[in-house]
């Protein structure tokens, strides 16, 4: 089947097998290897991307279901060489060790803050419970998300998620994660 998806601001038209998962399409056909696969039961969240502004586990979406969609991956977050506030917060708070879970964590955290711009610690923990990390014990991830919420607060207009969506809409400005 032929599908059209816009990923991190660039539009791709490809032939895909009906059973192809979105995550494999992103990684293998489009080369977005920043998004990774950690399980086969939709439990780990490593593959989380934004599909039309909502976080989804891209291992539980078929590529054909994404036909016509706008997708943002971790590679499309930074703009003009400037990290997205959540990427920056993950770095500043040592919220990653091996970094394998990090793309999914960051994408899910953006979604979490879009839904709840002022979460407390428990709300962050609940918002991330579908994303597993084996390295960090989560404490610094939680701290990073709370920190990012702070950073995003003074400027109420663009929340993390809308910023990401804007990035998707303006491909010319994409740098950093783009290859």
């Amino acid at each position: 089947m032929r599908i059209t998806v816009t990923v991190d601001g660039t539009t791709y038209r490809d032939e895909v097998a009906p059973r192809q998962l979105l995550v494999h399409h992103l990684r293998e056909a489009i080369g977005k290897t920043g998004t990774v696969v950690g399980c086969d039961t939709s439990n780990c969240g490593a593959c989380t991307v934004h599909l039309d502004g909502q976080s989804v586990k891209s291992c539980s979406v078929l590529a054909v279901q994404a036909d016509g969609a706008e997708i943002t991956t971790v590679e499309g977050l930074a703009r003009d060489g400037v990290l997205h506030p959540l990427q920056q917060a993950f770095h500043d708070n040592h919220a990653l060790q091996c970094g394998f879970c990090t793309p999914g964590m960051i994408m899910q955290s953006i979604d979490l803050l879009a839904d709840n711009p002022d979460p407390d610690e428990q709300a962050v923990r609940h918002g991330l419970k579908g994303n597993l990390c084996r390295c960090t014990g989560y404490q610094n991830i939680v701290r990073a998300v709370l920190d990012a919420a702070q950073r995003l607060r003074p400027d109420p207009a663009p929340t993390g998620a809308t910023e990401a969506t804007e990035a998707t809409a303006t491909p010319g400005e994409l740098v950093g994660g783009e290859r």
Partner: protein
Amino acid sequence: MTATIEPEVGRARPRKEDARLVTGRTRWTDNLTVPGLLHLAFLRSPVAHAKITSIDVEAARRAPGVVAVFTGRDIADAQGSLPCAWPVTADQVAPAAPSLAVDQVNFAGEAVAVVVARGKAEAHDALEAIDVDYDELPVVLDLRAAIAEDADVVHPDLGTNRSAHWVFDSAEAGTGGDVEQAIAEAEVLIERTYRQQRLIPAFMEPRSVLVDPTGEQTTVWSATQIPHILRLMLALTTGVPEHKLRVIAPDVGGGFGGKLQVTPEEVVALVVATRLGKPVKWTESRSESLLSAHHGRDQLQRLTLAARRDGTVTGLKVDLLADMGAYLRLVTPGVPILGAFMFNAIYKFPAYRFACTNVFTTKTPTDAYRGAGRPEATFAIERLMDELAAELGRDPIELREQNWIKHDEFPFTTVCGLEYDSGNYEAATARAKELFGYDELRAEQRERRDRGDSVQLGIGTSTFTEMCGLAPSRVLGSLSYGAGGWEHAAIRMLPSGKVEVVTGSSAHGQGHETAWSQIVADQLGVPFEDVEVLHGDTQSSPKGLDTYGSRSLTVGAMAVLKAGEKVIRKARRVAAHMMECAEDDLEFTGGRFTVRGTERSTGITEVALAVFAAHDLPDGVEPSLDSAATFDPDNFSFPHGTHLCAVEVDTETGFVKIRKYVCVDDVGVVVNPVIVEGQVHGGLAQGIAQALYEEAVHDESGTLTTGTFADYLLPSAVDLPHFDTDRTETPSTTNQLGVKGVGEAGTIASTPAVVNAVVDAVRHFGVDDIQMPCTPMRVWTAINGGPTDAGGPGGEAGGGLGSIDSTGGAL
């Protein structure tokens, strides 16, 4: 060039490796591809123990996209036997360990055939076309039953399930008294049997290997902790000459011991790629990983602690059964032995005996998992100390203090003959009690107990030490380990003033690039940003013994420091020549050689440029500052700490909630406090997971029933508490940096702290043990007087609490 002003060592630097990782600019093995790449899929045995009577692969060979199919018999001449580098005793018995089973399978999940196809999906599809006939044999699952007289045997040609029996006895070794005498004379005896359940390392990045045989050297990319060991072992196992192999560990996700292995899949990928002359790749699925990658722990511990009524410990006897699983992998038999010297922990036992029987079963092989041997030992002794305190009606911390090595008694030679160089258990404990609010929580506990509250509070203590910095080569030799414990490093001074550091340590999330840069920046007086750390490729980093056992900083960074010393020595000679003075007149600080008592100076990077030009060097001086060093430690290092855990146990449901977790670790000098804290957090998560959530369960047919993340319960963010961490700092005296290692500390210490707390919460119901993981079912059963021992309730798949809800944890 700018000299660094503030010292880098000790600074909370955000990591340089993050830039790639937070933007998805990563090089995981599974991301890599080469032209003409073929994909592998493995057919795995669904049964735990059987003769293979026939394998028919003809239909699979004809399946779409399939290039070749191999069985164990097809590659029997090339695959060799998977290596075990640690024959713990001279009379250890072990079966041949083919990567693809040839005529018998010995655990469910063992690979029996491999399909090579143009696409990954096509390779997997073709697996269904392979027809295998199995003639089932009796399974061997229970450790005690496995060593009984009439037991069914896993490997009939060995005639026994006992692989080895390893003993340390302080009376025989001359390092202490006779434990039997101590037991005979004891005023108090605490006798317990504890079970270390089987765990799965469950690293997040699945294993992956890509082999490209088309170059002059065959290149192997692998998600491994041990690129250097892997290169040697692949050469020895398959006969491909070592110099014709290049192993690269690109970005590698956390391994926790799980990637300290020479895997069947790596061997098969090499053999198949070589045979076909084409590049091949294999990446495991999560289910494949949980099923067939090595497991950890799985011991039965029979323990006897002897003491006087006044609380003084007088002897400790340890009798272990350790489950090897079906085969001996790289260091399988040595894992329980690594615990042998740690059961006595921080206490002054006068007599000690450790015996371990390594046992084969028809289960997935076990091997290193974070802590490897030391968590088991620490769990046993810290649980016993709480039991002794309960028996004597003493405060568990005060009882520990009565028996531990005092800070003014270091260096202290233990009953095992190890010399603990430094430590201050009093300081760490005092700080932990203060942060914890120990007295207040004890008061609340009494109050709730008096009130008969349905939610009871329990307080658990763990005052641990561990031996890390593996390891002095001669000690490894005395333990029959197949290699040394040194590490290698090199420093290259580039003409532009930048510095390349080559390290044999192989980082996979630890932050070596940042920490090594900090150390070198201080030592050579160059900016942090000007240091590049190269690792994980046997071509750029040709020599090393890799990363495990909390060894990277204590051994690997020490090698870096030694290489730096050589660079400075070489540069000093040239600097003296440049400034026409004697070498002794030069002072080196902040990256500059200064002629003592003058303003005259030159920077080390200027010397590097002068050496590059080589126009005017002293006679006989080579035009290079580059230096290498191989460092072999004299002793282990001994981090320690005090962990305190408060849990609330709902006595009506058995649900355990961690109310407060405080740990004060002493890991010696700290290079980067942020990285150290992160290591502690991650370690705590895994130790707590053993106490409360995780267990690899096999059913009565030997099938793993916890083979997905829906069943094997890795804790999520909601399952773990906030940790209050702090440090005391007693420098190690066994290495120049004063560092001790931190990778395993949290895991080792936390498990007994949590279980002690759970037992403490319900001890007044007559409970003195609850088997791990302490699931609501097990806790409730214990409170209500039911069985809590091995095989009791809660042993079902998904027995832990976890966060998995009816949606399976999906969004």
